[in-house]
């Protein structure tokens, strides 16, 4: 009998038994997630490469534009130092290579957590683990899928870059750099998935790592040579540091390779130390009674929003402070008409490089604020899907009160943080140059963008009240805004295309004069959309 049992156990009973099955399960469940992310990320490379000649022409004027871009500190802080802007490959790597590497990190973190901790928290992996599947098989399957997706992204990039006629070595170096950056964040996702029992916390920690890495390299590249070495600490800087298309330094790519392997190994050893369903730390008991003020839908909405508020609020404010510290080294320079035009597109026409920088930063930050605001109203949908909205609506809580409990903080708090960004971004520069008026002008610029955030919220609330099946729509709106604001300018988007976001029509103070019409119209439309959402929510079925 023992012998029979022994024989059975002997056949494939290691911690990785069933890894193939786990890989296929993750692929089946998340194939659209990975497919869309990989294709969208890849598309930036050929799109930028083919737009190269329309950006930098093959003559003296083109070389002047390239020199201007290379010297522009805003561009350095946002995109890193350029090595070769006079050829398609080098320009593409500088313009979108680092960006794609960073966003592939977002993809990797979300994808790995989606297939591991999120499934575990939902209780779905328990059933799988009861089958003949090893302790590490599910994590290994998810990591394997993340690495495979990174590899496919790399292959697509390499093939398209070579196909567009850029040098083979540079293409391979760029593709490998981006794929290995994604692999590092596969490791980050795998580690953060082990830390906490909550997928939301894991995502928060993982994305904070991406954000911190970006901020670190922005400081390194934006603030001159003294802290340039900081860039070596940032995983999203390693691909640019390998210098694709500019005398490739292949050895730099050992860095992401080793770190990715180390993080993945760490994830497996952490997983071996914890119970299924648990984080690294045992769950602490909560209070036996709710606090005095914990008595209504409003209190609940604040409580649910609190962890995200702290994370996003602190992150955005830190971003504003760090970016603000880069601005005091900028000088006003006289520009050629060609360069002025380029900066007008990037920073809404401010001849003052410092103002152009603030305007560009506000353009990026306001989209992040909108994403956060959207996440706050997103709670209502999750509450409804999980059946918890039903529990609250079965108490003496009216529909408008319930919806308002979530919508009001989502309008108020991000708007306040946007105002704080408007103060903190120019604060150091304003103090250093004794130009206090600057702070007021940039604050005005931040507030002029607030109606765009409200419009995104309006779309989300209207969708929730009138057509909850369209929940993806507001995300498409902010996703498009992110693409347009971050890279639309240099990607050669037409002027009318650049204006197709909730922020595109708003005046870009202080570089442009105030225009009340779009500000008032967008505010009113946002208000009407929110009102329509409340109207619909009072009339539709819930649950």
């Amino acid at each position, binding site marked *: 009998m023992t012998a029979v049992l022994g024989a059975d156990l002997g056949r494939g009973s290691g911690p990785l038994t069933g890894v193939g099955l786990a890989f296929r399960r993750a692929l089946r469940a998340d194939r659209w997630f990975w497919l869309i992310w990989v294709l969208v990320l890849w598309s930036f490379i050929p799109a930028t490469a083919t737009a190269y000649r329309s950006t930098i022409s093959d003559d003296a004027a083109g070389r002047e534009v390239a020199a201007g871009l290379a010297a522009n500190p805003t561009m350095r802080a946002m995109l890193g130092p350029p090595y070769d802007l006079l050829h398609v490959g080098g320009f593409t790597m500088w313009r979108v290579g680092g960006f794609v590497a960073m966003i592939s990190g977002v993809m990797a973190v979300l994808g790995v957590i989606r297939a591991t901790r999120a499934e575990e928290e939902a209780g779905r992996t328990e059933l799988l683990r009861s089958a003949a599947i090893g302790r590490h098989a599910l994590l290994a399957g998810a990591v394997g899928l993340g690495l495979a997706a990174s590899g496919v992204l790399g292959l697509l990039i390499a093939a398209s870059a070579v196909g567009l006629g850029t040098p083979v070595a540079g293409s391979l170096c760029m593709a490998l750099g981006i794929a290995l950056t994604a692999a590092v964040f596969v490791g980050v996702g795998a580690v953060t998935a082990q830390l906490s029992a909550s997928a939301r916390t894991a995502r928060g920690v993982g994305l904070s790592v991406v954000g911190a890495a970006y901020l670190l390299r922005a400081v390194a590249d934006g603030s001159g040579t003294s802290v340039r070495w900081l860039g070596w600490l940032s995983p999203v800087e390693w691909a640019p540091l390998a210098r694709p298309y500019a005398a490739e330094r292949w050895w730099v790519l050992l860095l992401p390779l080793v770190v990715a392997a180390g993080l993945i190994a760490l994830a497996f050893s952490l997983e071996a130390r914890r119970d299924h369903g648990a984080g690294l730390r045992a769950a602490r008991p*909560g209070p036996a009674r*709710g606090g005095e003020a914990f008595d209504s839908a409003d209190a*609940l909405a604040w409580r649910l929003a609190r962890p995200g508020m702290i994370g996003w609020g602190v992150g955005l404010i830190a971003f504003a402070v760090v970016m603000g510290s880069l601005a005091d080294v900028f000088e006003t320079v006289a520009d050629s008409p060609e360069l002025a035009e380029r900066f007008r597109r990037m920073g809404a026409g401010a001849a003052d490089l410092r103002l152009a920088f603030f305007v560009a930063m506000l353009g990026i930050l306001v989209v992040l604020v909108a994403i956060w605001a959207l996440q706050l109203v997103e709670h209502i949908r999750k509450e409804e899907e*999980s059946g918890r909205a039903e529990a609250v609506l079965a*108490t*003496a809580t009216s529909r408008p009160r319930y919806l308002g409990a979530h919508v009001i903080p989502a309008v108020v708090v991000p708007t306040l943080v946007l105002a704080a960004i408007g103060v903190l971004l120019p604060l150091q520069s304003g103090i250093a140059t004794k130009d206090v008026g600057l702070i007021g002008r940039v604050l005005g610029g931040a507030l002029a963008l607030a109606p765009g955030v409200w419009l995104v919220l309006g779309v989300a609330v209207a969708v929730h009240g009138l057509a909850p099946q369209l929940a993806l729509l507001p995300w498409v709106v902010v996703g498009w805004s992110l693409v347009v604001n971050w890279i639309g300018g240099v990607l050669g988007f037409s002027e009318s295309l650049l204006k197709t976001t909730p922020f595109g029509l708003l005046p870009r103070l202080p570089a442009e004069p105030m225009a009340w019409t779009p500000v008032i119209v967008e505010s009113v439309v946002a208000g009407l959309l929110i009102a329509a959402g409340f109207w619909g929510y009072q009339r539709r079925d819930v649950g």
Partner: protein
Amino acid sequence: MRYVSAVIDISGLVKTFGPTRALDGLDLRVEAGQVHGFLGPNGSGKSTTIRVLLGLLRPDAGTARLLGGDPWADAPALHRRLAYVPGDVSLWPNLSGGEIIDLLGRARGGLDGPRRAELIDRFELDPTKKGRSYSKGNRQKVALVAALSSDVELLLLDEPTSGLDPLMERVFNQVVAAERDRGRTVLLSSHILSEVESLCDHVSIIRAGKLVESGTLADLRHLTRTLINVESDSPPRQLAEVPGVHEVQVTGRLLTAQVDATAMGEVLGILAGSGVRSFTATPPTLEELFLRHYDGTS
């Protein structure tokens, strides 16, 4: 407190979800003070009915009145007077059970502190655990304590004992019996018949969104057949000819048969003259009632 109209008064209620007709002209009436069993198989429309009563779903046709008000238009005001336990309890993963009980109780308009403590004790619930770490039965207990701690007129309980162990089920039965004695009205949906049988004085049975039977348990038993077992020296085979007697089987000295309530007198008369040595009569359980309504033939 007296109600001119019933606590729950539903007539001709229709609710469709796309092509599915979840409620198809449902009638339901629950009087004040009743513990009313609401029986039906899965998917028969019990939860949909309760959600209409909570104002979460808007009916397509028909009327629903709750505590004298309109469940859709007057939802928040009516909800102060009722408490609800959903069939599938989902808790906030980061809130402790105690916080959830307090939140729901207070949002309803207040809860009775000593009663809350007593219920937590009786249900042996640990209120300091986080929502995500409760088992199914314990999530159910959190919802039950939250609902029962409030001083309300009406309890809407949607399959409240699913997930409770037999010991806790007994505690639940005792608590609901005490609520009944205090004059509360209870609507208890279930497909667990023994639970309804021991707690409820009235029963409504629905199937495919329609009411098929409603009345007191005694009323419903009139509609059903009693199983008799007779041991006799000469079993009276002529029983088979009596109208209302079915499935007569004789094996040696033993006879079994199904007897309609209307034929019982005549059957006993015949048995009296046939040297009966032992006799048992088993009244129908709700299981049998249920099977008859749902086996698709009757």
